[in-house]
């Protein structure tokens, strides 16, 4: 079970943070292109999922699975989008992503007066805390 990468976007699609842990095959796009592609796709899936839902949905798009990886999505009430790419053996980690948002992002970015809102995150304390959080997860395995 592994975590491959994490992206954080603000409500306008600007990439605030991106981190890769293990990625054997790159997508041959530049960083910016890939970020835009990811955001656009997630945005489309999100609205598609809500439109096609046969019942009134509560949460909408949570994740999608392919034969090789799984993408998990969490959007905070403030429009912040967290996208986590893991392998296929990880279950529903919505609670984990909520905790990631509240105990790492809110604590060390929102409450850091030197981190301007909606701008890429430069705080190394945030990175350290994120790393601790991720490596502490039961499904994180540093397999290279």
């Amino acid at each position: 079970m592994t975590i491959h990468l994490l992206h954080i976007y603000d409500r306008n699609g600007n990439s605030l943070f991106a981190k890769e842990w293990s990625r054997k095959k790159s997508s041959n796009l530049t960083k910016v292109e890939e970020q835009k592609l990811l955001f656009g796709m997630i945005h489309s899936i999100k609205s598609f999922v809500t439109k096609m839902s046969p019942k009134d949905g509560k949460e909408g798009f949570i994740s999608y699975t392919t034969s090789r990886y799984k993408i998990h999505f969490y959007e905070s009430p403030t429009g912040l989008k967290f996208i986590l790419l893991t392998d296929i053996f990880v279950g529903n980690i919505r609670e984990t992503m909520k905790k990631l948002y509240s105990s790492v992002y809110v604590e060390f970015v929102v409450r850091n007066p030197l981190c301007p809102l909606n701008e890429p995150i430069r705080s190394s304390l945030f990175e350290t805390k994120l790393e601790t959080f991720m490596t502490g997860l039961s499904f994180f395995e540093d397999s290279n």
Partner: protein
Amino acid sequence: MQEDATNVLFELLHDELISYVYSNDIDMKSKQISILESHGFRIGQSLAEQLTKDSSRFKDELEIMKFVCRDFWSAMYQKQVDNLRTNHQGVYVLQDNCFKLLKRISSGKQYLEFAPRFLAIPCGFVRGALANLGINSIVTAEVISMPAVKFQIMIQRV
């Protein structure tokens, strides 16, 4: 770990006040730290009155310092000062290894140059509280590695 709404509010307001004082269109360049410190001084005076209104008079200077390290620090930052040292000749050093207002900013050297602006008001708090309890002092703060802070209090004896 749910934080008290009033503590969060104080920190957020404090952050905004600092960014206002340091914003470019205010005519306060080079006086920013002393403006913040004097705000802290005035607040510290009232805080001391508020926090000691039900207790008896302090025996001596050391008792007052212990009040600052324990009760005052607990009321403001929900923890006590980690270490108090004195040379018994009017200089006291208060050490806080994880100062609340800095602990979300960095642990280490990043943003170190911004630390003084976040310590101006806390220094003012101490100076104001001491002043209202009868002690005139000069209070400065030093940060070598975030978020540990050393506050140095120099008593001014007339």
